[in-house]
């Protein structure tokens, strides 16, 4: 009998498919051939390792990390949560990179042509590491909704993009966090690309009054669950 380390696999029931015609850009970019299950060798069990030395003191505070001549405009919010693997264990030292539109729904990116103002004191980019309990926290401005040209009168719900590096490269995740009660969610083909209701709900943060700070900022909680939890198998 040998002992083997494996990782839990991605559960496709709760993931979007590559082809989702309601999101028109998927039509020419969706792989069509069946995916091949990748054996989990050391190439998959490993991944980049980060420490606090990789993070600057203001990287987690989007209300201060791009200030030029004042505070950014908009509703200040605190976003916090835990990064867990799908066995429920905390993932420490996970690297989260976040990016978003400003309060008016405008991205800093030069190809964003939405007719809404840039904010000279806000770039909408940050990063943060989880602590030993898998917890992270960052401070930002609530992003605005913005129009896109997917279909007539298409508007993205308010969202924050997340890029996550967990304990190994197999758990790599890029996703978006939404806000509770947003009426645009029901109309959004990107959010609705996920069939499974429980999985889709994972993308909606919850209002957290215990995170809200008096006279300062509202709090939202957003936990992230990654695949790639370690499983020991006896063969």
């Amino acid at each position, binding site marked *: 009998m040998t002992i083997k380390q494996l990782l839990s696999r991605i559960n496709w029931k709760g993931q979007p498919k590559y082809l989702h015609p309601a999101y028109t850009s998927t039509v020419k970019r969706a792989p069509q051939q069946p995916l091949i299950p990748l054996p989990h060798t050391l190439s998959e069990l490993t991944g980049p390792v980060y420490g606090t030395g990789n993070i600057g003191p203001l990287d987690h505070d989007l209300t201060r990390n791009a200030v030029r001549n004042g505070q950014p405009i908009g509703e200040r919010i605190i976003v916090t949560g835990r990064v867990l693997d799908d066995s429920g264990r905390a993932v420490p030292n996970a690297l989260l990179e976040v990016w978003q539109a400003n309060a008016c729904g405008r991205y800093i*990116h030069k190809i964003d042509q939405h007719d809404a103002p840039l904010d000279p004191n806000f770039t909408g980019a940050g990063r943060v590491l989880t602590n030993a309990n898998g917890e992270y926290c960052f401070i930002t401005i609530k992003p605005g909704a913005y129009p896109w040209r997917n279909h007539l009168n298409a508007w993205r719900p308010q969202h924050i993009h997340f890029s996550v590096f967990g304990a190994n490269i197999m758990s790599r995740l890029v996703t*978006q966090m939404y806000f509770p009660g947003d009426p645009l969610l029901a109309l959004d083909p990107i959010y609705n690309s996920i069939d499974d209701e429980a999985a889709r709900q994972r993308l909606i943060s919850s209002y957290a009054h215990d995170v809200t700070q008096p006279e300062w900022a509202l709090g939202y909680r957003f936990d992230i669950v990654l695949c790639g939890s370690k499983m020991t198998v006896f063969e």
Partner: protein
Amino acid sequence: MLTQTPSQTVGPFFYDALIAPGKPFIPTLVRDGVQGQRILIVGTVLDGDGAPVPDAMIEIWQADANGYHNHPADPNYAKADPNFSGLGRCDTVNNGRFEFQTVKPGRVEGQAPHVNVRVFSRGMLIHANTRMYFGDEAAANADDAVLSLVPIDRRDTLIAPLLPSNGLPTYRFNLVLQGEGETVFFTP
């Protein structure tokens, strides 16, 4: 088991947060003093019409020249090359093209040398995973357990030819998202 958080597209507006100067990931995985053979990996991301995809992001992850990873799951963690990062990230703003400066990886657990490759882009609700193998490693490729899972008529999509070059050895690995010559993608 907990419900996993689903993927959503990286969208079109990631550049300033994930790619711009000063961000932690760059297309150069090597520093001065790196061990092994320095190489370039170049390629183009193509859509189902054969058109270049100028708003993708490519990430690679690989072992160092000795086949070691700078990660505690690797029994040879302590011996991993301190001048090699293992992870690279590149945009495709230049007409769908990407280029990484890295080293040729050593063999990992007897596998043929390979690089793990991920493609993210607008229009991809979840990124695609693949592996790049080296065109000048025919004998090792023929014995590789992962390549052997791939239908034989599609294996070429994973094998990067060595291009004629006066400088660093340069391997070309195009990523065809869809249609004729579609790159083989794996599920994690």
